[in-house]
């Protein structure tokens, strides 16, 4: 549509000009040979010449379990927001395969720089999901120590973390280590200058970083067409490293492609851009209303590509999991949901004086002074018996 409207606006002063205008821009498409897929929406295994994967039944069930529990956690968080327990929630509904597939490709000593929607990746890193809720409840700006799980804090300014990831990866290279970094970002962030600068720096310094773009088609209300005129994975070529588009709703393909990109990084061959072609089934966050900007039919079309359903179909067809397995998993999901609910509701507000905590590592007399004033002010109410 963008192509046609642009062509129509072009003045047709010469046949040459007209023919140039008619040259089709490479609009993003989520199909065809460019899209790496190992498991079809119908749950059929297919082969790809460049990406092989051979997982045991246990491993396949593990991926399924990760996706189911992540979706359950996400649904609980959305419900908690509706109940007023969270100020905001950014749902990952629909993106479970992209996150679990890439997250399970990581080694413990790899490092992850997420945006604010990587709940599934956090799950893979071993971050307790309830820790993710502190910032959405408003009790902190990130409730975990990034170095415990090599999972950095959520970053809300879009794209900023791609540079942090690149710098961290430059440090890994300096240290002579063979670990790697994954930087997560979205199709909207791909428009940010920081992402372009991260591509430049990582290429120039051959940094072991994998840029994992979850193209979920919508940056709040703006479609991918408002971000780019070429398929996102093709941008990498201009920076001098490979880009690959993977079916983001295919957990096997996401795992295989990310694993391959990480191995490349470990070999010292530099960055890779992975574009996981997926779909955000819900709202950008609980504060927006996707019915205002996208058609129901579009969502319905993507529902048929559901990442969890297709793996379940495969597991059932191959008789890799029986009814008892699925029932037990349902129960585990409910237990997780209840735990999340209980922990969030019991999550205390921080101490008032926490406003001043950790503003500086080496201290600051101004902060000390204001802290003392604030403490005295608060104490004055206690003295008055309030």
């Amino acid at each position, binding site marked *: 549509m963008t192509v046609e409207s642009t062509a129509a606006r072009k003045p047709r002063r010469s046949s040459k000009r007209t023919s140039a205008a008619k040259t089709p821009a490479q609009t993003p498409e989520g199909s065809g040979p460019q899209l790496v897929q190992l498991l079809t929406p119908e749950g059929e295994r297919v082969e790809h010449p460049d990406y092989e994967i051979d997982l045991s039944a246990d491993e396949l069930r593990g991926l399924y379990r990760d996706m189911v529990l992540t979706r359950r956690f996400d649904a609980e968080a959305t419900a908690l927001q509706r109940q007023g327990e969270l100020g905001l929630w950014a749902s990952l509904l629909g993106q479970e395969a992209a996150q679990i597939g890439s997250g399970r490709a990581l080694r413990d000593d790899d490092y992850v*720089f997420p945006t604010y929607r990587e709940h599934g990746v956090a799950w893979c890193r071993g971050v307790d999901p309830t820790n993710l809720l502190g910032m959405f409840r408003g009790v*902190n*700006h*990130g*409730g975990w*120590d*990034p*170095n415990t799980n090599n999972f*950095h*804090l959520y*970053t809300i*300014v879009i794209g*900023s973390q*791609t*540079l*942090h*990831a*690149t*710098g*961290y*990866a*430059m*440090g*890994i290279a*300096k*240290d002579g280590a063979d670990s790697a970094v994954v930087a997560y970002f979205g199709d909207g962030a791909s428009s940010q*200058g*920081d992402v372009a*600068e*991260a591509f*430049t*720096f990582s290429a*120039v310094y051959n940094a072991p970083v994998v840029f994992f773009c979850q193209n979920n088609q919508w940056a709040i209300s703006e479609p991918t067409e408002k971000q780019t005129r070429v398929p996102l994975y093709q941008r990498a070529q201009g920076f001098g490293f490979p880009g690959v588009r993977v079916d983001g709703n295919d957990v096997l393909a996401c795992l295989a492609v990310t694993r391959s990109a990480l191995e490349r990084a470990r070999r010292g061959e530099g960055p890779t851009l992975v574009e996981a072609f997926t779909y955000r089934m819900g709202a950008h966050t609980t504060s927006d209303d996707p019915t205002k900007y996208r058609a129901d039919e579009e969502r319905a079309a993507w529902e048929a590509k559901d990442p969890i359903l297709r793996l379940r179909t495969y597991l059932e067809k191959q008789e890799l999991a029986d009814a008892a397995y699925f029932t037990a998993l349902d129960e585990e999901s409910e237990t997780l949901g209840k735990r999340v609910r209980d922990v969030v509701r019991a999550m205390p507000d921080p101490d008032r004086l926490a406003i001043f*905590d*950790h*503003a*500086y*590592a*080496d201290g*600051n*007399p*101004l*902060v000390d002074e204001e802290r003392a004033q604030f403490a005295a002010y608060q104490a004055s109410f206690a003295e008055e018996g309030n």
Partner: protein
Amino acid sequence: MAAEKMSIAKALNESLRKALDTDPKVLIMGEDVGKLGGVFRITDGLQKDFGEGRVIDTPLAESGIVGTAIGLALRGYRPVVEIQFDGFVFPAYDQIVTQLAKMHARALGKIKMPVVIRIPYGGGIGAVEHHSESPEALFAHVAGLKVVSPSNASDAYWMMQQAVQSDDPIIFFEPKRRYWDKGELDTESIPGPLHKAAVAREGSDLTLVAYGPMVKVCLEAAAAAQEEGKSIEVLDLRSMSPIDFDAVQTSVEKTGRLVVVHEAPVFYGSGAEIAARITERCFYHLEAPVLRVGGYHAPYPPARLEDEYLPGLDRVLDAVDRSLAY
């Protein structure tokens, strides 16, 4: 090396050399800092001696420089970043303000950000647009950042050492028109704390507070006033965040009068902060309102007009006279 005469530029170079030599985690990063040694040659010879892995020529992308420095700090390195000129810091302002300044607090103290951002700042060298600005208030306003500026070779050397050792992000403003001013530097003397102000000249009738490039102007003004029988104290603030208000208060309690001098626009500037705090602290000691001398609320003028824009001897002395007239 004992005491010797040295320019601010050379003192900074020696200080960075010592920092690289002392701690293998220290890195120098920036545009042209390698072979060229920086456009002001502050990093001259460092890449030759420490290699391209320690003194890193970067792509020409300021947000990228600061953003990757943050990542390197997260990995345990201590990057010292050069922004080529004051007016070029704004592409990196987002990374500095939304990321660098907040990282320690967001992680509830679990991670530290030992990053130094060196910025040659201020006017007086006849440069073109975006090469002469004084944006210190924009950084001092942001919690999580510390902002300093040396005015002499000794402070340049020692404050850089202290900035590199700090676990907080430091915005290190270098007064570019003073780069070639020489002063005594004793590399073995024990320096005072990074954020402590220094009395640059004793006096009893009025206090001039300045930092960076304006300290020299204030010392000249004090010397000129001396000839008219006025005793002016000059306080070199050294740090714009935090500010050593105790030192300013001590001086103002002695003199009863305060004039704050800086190159940056007066409006919402550090002079306003100092005036407000000192009025609160010293209301009964003040013989006159706190006056400010600085830049105008106008875009930085072309070079041929910068002498009109920058506070000079006459404008400082005029403020001294106005204060003493109360």
